[in-house]
């Protein structure tokens, strides 16, 4: 009987843990949820600053992982401001000056419209498995939902956040919480998904809160008002000429 104990334990271990997907597989499933051939979305950003709260609305067109175009719709001061990302280049157009400025270098670290998001965040490859190695480190519950805990480490040194800790919903493969760290180990930002919704067969965040922990204020709430996947986007949208239209 004693001789059987070890094989039974090994079989049991294999049954229990052999079914667990790897960190890489989990991250790829998250990417599948997040990315699409293309999509168009309207969103609201509520920036809760130290002194006041501001609300901005924007419309975005995104194609794959390399092309993105955003136009701000309100408030009046920001209306008509546009951002264009093509590959690793980013331009911003200001209607009041009729100038298009390339955002590069230290400007990428600047806040987008005073929010807790930076231009660097905007430039990040949305397919995280392309830029991070993932390791499954455990399981935890977030808001009564079972989650995998992933530890992500940058494949290259030049990623905006070298290390990320991600709590991924086991059932929906959607991250419910993220902590973003610098290479030194310092916590830089925190993301909490407060509400999700199912759209065209995939789970997607509806309301999330970004918090730059180095910045004062209560964070930035990002709300997806509407989103459509695999829509037809005219090619001119992703051109510098579209910025001035």
């Amino acid at each position, binding site marked *: 009987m004693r001789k059987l104990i070890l094989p039974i334990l090994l079989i049991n271990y294999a049954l229990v843990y052999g079914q667990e997907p790897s960190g890489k597989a989990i991250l790829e499933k998250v990417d599948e949820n997040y990315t699409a051939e293309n999509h168009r979305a309207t969103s609201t950003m509520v920036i809760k600053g130290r002194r006041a709260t501001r609300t901005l609305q924007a419309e975005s067109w995104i194609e794959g992982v390399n092309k993105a175009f955003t136009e701000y719709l309100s408030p009046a*001061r920001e209306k008509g401001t546009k951002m264009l990302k093509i590959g690793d280049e980013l331009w911003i157009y200001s209607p009041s*000056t009729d100038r298009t*400025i390339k955002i590069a270098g230290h400007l990428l670290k*600047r806040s*987008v*419209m005073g929010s807790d998001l930076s231009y660097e965040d905007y430039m990040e490859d949305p397919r995280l498995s392309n830029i991070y190695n993932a390791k499954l480190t455990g399981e935890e519950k977030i808001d009564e939902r079972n989650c995998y805990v992933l530890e992500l480490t940058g494949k290259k040194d030049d990623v905006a956040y070298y290390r990320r800790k991600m709590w991924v919903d086991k059932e929906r493969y959607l991250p419910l919480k993220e902590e973003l760290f610098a290479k030194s180990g310092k916590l830089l930002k925190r993301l909490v998904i407060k509400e999700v919704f199912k759209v065209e067969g995939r789970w997607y965040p509806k309301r999330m809160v970004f918090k730059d922990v180095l910045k004062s204020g209560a964070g930035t709430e990002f709300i997806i008002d509407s989103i459509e996947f695999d829509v037809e986007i005219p090619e001119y949208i992703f051109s510098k000429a579209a910025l001035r239209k």
Partner: protein
Amino acid sequence: MIRFLIKGLLRDRSRSLFPVLMVSAGAFLTVFLYSFMKGTMDDLISSNAKFDTGHVKIMTRAYEEMAEQTPNDLALLGINGLLEKLRSSERNIVWTPRIRFGGLLDIPDERGETRAQGPVMGLGVDLLSPESREKDILNLESGLVRGRLPQKKNEILISEEFAKKLGMEIGEVATLIGSTMNGAMAMHNFKVSGTVRFGITVMDRGAVIADIKDVQSALDMEDGASEIVGYSENMYYDDDNMLALTQRFNDQFSRDDDEFSPLMLSLSQHSGMGEYLDLVDVFGGIIVLIFVVVMSIVLWNSGLINGLRRYGEIGVRLAMGEPKGSLYRWMIYESIIIGFIGSILGTVFGLGISYYLQYTGIDFAAMLQKSTMLISNVIRARVTGWSYVIGFVPGLVASVVGTMFAGIGIYRRQTSQLFKELEV
């Protein structure tokens, strides 16, 4: 008696020339160093007062804590109301709002693409109101190199060195890329109306000055300002008055439990400036002290050598029955005359070179290339009332004290030994 002493001193040059030269050199150095340091410190304080601290400055409590980062998200709001109250309650102070900002100045080419770009520090000041005194406070008219001062909306002045670096001409458009009060990216087009030389390296490296209303519009700071600065009408800083004003204002407006309530600081309460002011006060004293101690030791030594040289003369005079006290007093009288003449000569030379450097100054621009201090490139001496006496009194005192020490030897001479010594 004095004529007799002067004759003796003139006829025996070894008794007068060296001590006079020593006292002159000491007095000269004291006057010159004091005047030059006074000029340097006054310039530092004046430059800081004009461009940064004012004689008093009002900020929010939260802004004051991080003032070096110019956190405009924590700036004063409702400044028009506050200015109105200040102008009615403190009429002898010139009040003016300012916005400090940083960013990039981007120069477009004919297609609107970036032709040149550089980091810039900016100051939004009241340039267009007819009652504003900012042009005089900041010496903008005298510093103008090309073009003219802003006269219309959205015109800016740019430092000449920065304009040359970016290849900018008068009338060209420059886009300021900065941050709004809310932290969003701000882009605003300005037209360069003129270039200016501030004479302060840190500002000449890259500074722009624009009208505060344009800056408020560019940075989304309607009715807001980084600070309100105040200057006394005569532009003379009186620490006691300003501290009293600060106390009055803070008692009325500032609240510990509200980080956005206004807080007034006087120039001396700004970090480092109080120490500079104290330094100016004590610096004269330090120079005088060093001068008196060092000169006394040198003149003591000189007196001792002189005493040895005049050993025979003193011996004869004592042998002839002259009391030791009388001889000692004669030597002191001599030292007073030497100290007086030396101090006058030293003070005259010291004042001469100090006056010369008050007008011409010394250009330290090459040494201040990486400086972040608000100090003029050309540092000038400043002659004050103190410059006239700061070398004179210690020169006299050092000469007398040195002789008093050296003359003690007279009392050690034994009358019984005098003739024996004289035989030798």
